[in-house]
């Protein structure tokens, strides 16, 4: 009698939620993220992201550090756009102190931004291909990314977390080979990027797993604040380089890539096209770097005038906004980082519900999440 009831329960249990954990360690997330996924068969009913595994309290640490020290903390948020994070903090200090940075600095910063963006998109491309079962893409992507990291290493002495900027300019001038090697890289990568398309973009297996998956409407993207290539794949014009140009972006011609597909493949195409745009921006700037100082004159102790400051930049993943409340001391009273991945993560429940669990890998890959950026 008892056992019959149990058997009945098992069959009846079909209507109960079947919950599995994806993560905290999972190869398709760059970091520790746990997704509590509720399944019906193999269809996702809903999912709940659990974060905080690597929360370091960077905002609290900022309150005890000087602005020069904070730059080193921002590297550790979105480590694949380390240079762009540095620039956000540098620019907010320059804004507040009304320092005019030399033209040379602006040009070099913009070139480095774009190199960083290409390197980040390359790593995304190779990891995304690998998530969907194309192992070759991993080797292609890392092979080409190595060239950019070599340029960084020569100029900054580090490959991933540069901390090369300081308020007012650069730590030191770039290496004399910088221009030559960057031009060599652009020439090289222009022959390699079409290979990416041949390998993955036109691949019918890949297309079947990407087209029509993870639909995110434009309203959803704006409502959830999904920025960067993920938002632009849903036709949400959110490129801060266009809205509020900084650095040397007002001196170059480039297009904001917008796609109307709203699916995984649209977000993929935006990133592929952005690599071409980044190369075009670098080409326009690399031969015109003006001579001059590599830094403006700054006082050794930086104290921002009391007040509130706000600055937005475009990282490889979206909009990074920095909000500083200063009380006139050498460390900020409150520092807030609005990081792109934080907003990009939480849209996942909305766009993954109703798709298969195998599609969840493609969807989370297409959002290009970096977890330390969420946890801060």
């Amino acid at each position, binding site marked *: 009698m008892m056992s019959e009831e149990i058997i009945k329960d098992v069959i009846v249990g079909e209507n109960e939620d079947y919950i599995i954990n994806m993560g905290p360690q999972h190869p398709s997330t760059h970091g520790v993220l746990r997704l509590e996924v509720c399944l019906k068969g193999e269809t996702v009913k809903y999912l709940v992201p659990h*974060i*905080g595994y690597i*929360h370091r*309290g960077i*905002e*609290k640490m900022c309150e*005890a550090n000087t602005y020069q020290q904070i730059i080193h903390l921002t590297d550790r948020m979105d480590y694949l756009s380390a240079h762009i994070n540095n620039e956000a903090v540098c620019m907010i200090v320059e*804004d507040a102190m009304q320092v005019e940075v030399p033209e040379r600095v602006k040009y070099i910063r913009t070139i480095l931004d774009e190199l960083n963006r290409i390197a980040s998109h390359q790593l995304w491309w190779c990891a995304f291909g690998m998530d969907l079962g194309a192992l070759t893409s991993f080797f292609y992507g890392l092979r080409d990314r190595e060239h950019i990291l070599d340029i960084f290493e020569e100029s900054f002495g580090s490959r991933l977390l540069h901390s090369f900027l300081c308020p007012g300019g650069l730590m030191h001038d770039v290496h004399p080979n910088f221009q030559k090697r960057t031009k060599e890289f652009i020439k090289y990568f222009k022959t390699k990027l079409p290979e990416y398309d041949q390998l993955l973009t036109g691949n019918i297996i890949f297309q079947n797993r990407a087209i029509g998956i993870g639909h995110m409407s434009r309203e*959803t993207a*704006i*409502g*959830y*604040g999904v920025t960067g290539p993920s938002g632009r794949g849903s036709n*949400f*014009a*959110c490129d801060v380089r266009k*809205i509020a140009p900084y650095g040397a972006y007002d001196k170059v011609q480039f297009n904001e890539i917008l796609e109307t597909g709203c699916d995984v493949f649209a977000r993929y195409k935006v990133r592929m096209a952005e690599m071409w745009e980044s190369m075009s921006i670098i080409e326009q700037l690399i031969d015109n770097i003006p001579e001059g100082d590599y830094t403006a004159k700054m006082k050794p102790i930086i104290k921002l005038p009391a*007040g*509130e*400051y*706000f600055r*937005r930049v475009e990282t490889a993943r979206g*909009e990074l*906004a920095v*909000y500083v*409340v200063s009380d006139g001391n050498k460390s900020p*009273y*409150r520092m*807030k980082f*609005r990081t792109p991945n*934080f*907003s990009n993560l*939480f849209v996942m429940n*909305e766009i993954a519900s109703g798709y298969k669990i195998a599609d969840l890998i493609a969807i989370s890959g297409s959002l290009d999440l970096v977890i330390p950026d969420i*946890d801060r």
Partner: protein
Amino acid sequence: MPEAVFPEGTQLLEVIVPARKLFSLAERLKSDPILAFDYLISQTAVDFTTKFTVVCHLDSVKFRHMLVLKTELTDRENPVVDSLTALYPTAEFFEREIFDLFGIRFNNHPNLKRLFLEDDYGFPLRKDFRDEINIIER
């Protein structure tokens, strides 16, 4: 709205409203066709020891103008403000982060739980937070 205060000399246009008016003003800012503040860039809070300030940075995708919406909460023991989740879905998670780090509660929030930290942890971004084990005072 007569209670709104516009402080001068700020980097961006700012509006300070009483906490009970925050939601209705945000609703108007979003729905008015010539304002159309439909994109919440960030929402955060600042502890000024005598008061908490909740700061929302709003942006309009159509017109590209920005506005800073603020509200001040003087009750330190039990700070409460209305949630903006019904207008901006992303506010749900910004508000959970604020609740986690400042202990500010939000009315009508669908799921007000801590985001990063454990339930018995204090509110670390409050200025009177002390953690002898993990934070070394200089």
